[in-house]
């Protein structure tokens, strides 16, 4: 983003970048940047905390008024409040050991509750609905190369299926009560759900596939490296 700030400023626009990785801003030296300790993926702070988000946005926009640049690189002084685990959070119950289809079906009411709570869903990249996910995944595990019409390759279809599964479970984990930490959501998904085990299996299947695209995409984009087993 810092490089694009340069390019926009060259074209006559004032810019301010929020920087998640300070060393990158130090190297690229954009005209104005605010570094925050916000988690990667949450550059503007904590979800559902407009007060803290506004503090970050105000601090960033204030740099537009400064005249002592370039380069202005400021540090936001406070950590967002959502880092620690939430001891009050209760993980969704998953009783269908090893049975992804059964687990998914059991969680659907909580997914619906999450959609009501947040007014939206982040599920949708795969162009498939949840009722089709188990059969599609099974076909891949069986060595098939199923496709969906909207995506060019099986590799992309599985990649975005994995994204949608993670998104649905992430929303289920946050459907009720106070918010879990990101680490709690990840730990539950990857260590306690049939869905997490399914994605690990899809990764292993992809990595021995003779389909090079599936092998490449599966190795890098189904399971985050810290959670690979």
């Amino acid at each position: 983003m810092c490089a694009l700030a340069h390019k926009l400023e060259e074209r006559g626009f004032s810019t301010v970048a929020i920087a998640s990785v300070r060393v990158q801003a130090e190297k690229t030296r954009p005209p104005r940047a605010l570094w925050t300790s916000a988690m990667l993926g949450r550059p503007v702070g904590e979800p559902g905390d407009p007060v803290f988000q506004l503090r970050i946005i105000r601090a960033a926009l204030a740099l537009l008024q400064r005249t002592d640049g370039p380069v202005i690189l400021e540090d936001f002084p406070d950590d967002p409040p959502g880092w620690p685990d939430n001891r009050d959070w209760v993980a969704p119950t998953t009783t269908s050991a090893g049975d992804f289809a059964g687990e998914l079906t059991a969680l659907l009411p909580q997914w619906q509750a999450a959609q009501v709570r947040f007014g939206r869903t982040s599920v949708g990249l795969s162009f498939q609905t949840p009722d089709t996910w188990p059969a599609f995944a099974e076909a891949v595990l069986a060595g098939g190369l199923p496709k969906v019409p909207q995506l060019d390759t099986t590799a992309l279809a599985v990649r975005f299926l994995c994204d949608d599964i993670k998104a649905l479970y992430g929303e289920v984990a946050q459907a009720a009560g106070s918010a879990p930490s990101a680490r709690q959501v990840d730990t539950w998904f990857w260590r306690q759900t049939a869905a997490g085990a399914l994605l690990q299996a899809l990764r292993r299947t992809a990595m021995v596939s003779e389909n090079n695209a599936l092998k490449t995409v599966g190795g890098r984009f189904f399971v985050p490296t810290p959670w690979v087993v």
Partner: protein
Amino acid sequence: MARPEDIPQPTRDAVLNLPCPAFETTPFVSGPPLSERRIAILTSAALIKRGDQPFPFGSGEVRFLPADIAPNDLLLSHVSINFDRAGWQRDINVVFPIDRLRDLVATGEIGGVADTHYTVMGSTDPAAMEAAVDQIAGQLKQERIDSVLLTPV
């Protein structure tokens, strides 16, 4: 998390050692008081409108996001799986702070919010984005936008 010690490996090494372009000079454009500025968002989260194709890996394109797009019509298609998405799942503003800009318009702290916002694939080499930046600049001029807030993921 953007303290290095908070970033799990191998993402830590990847982000800390990411080649970054060097610029010989740094332009610095001034503008009117903040209360008169109209602001657009440029996010590298590779957001798409529901039903559109996800950003391809390495894409240098930009996509325009109308300010009034419904939150349920926004999906995040960034290629990396090594950053948190639970925050995005709860609240689009952690990535695309459109409601926060509206808050600042309501209090008179900024002059306005653009009708159009912008999104790119953050992992792409910026050298491949010259045409995209020209497209953004053209739309900014058309809407008389003077300032851009850039948000990463």
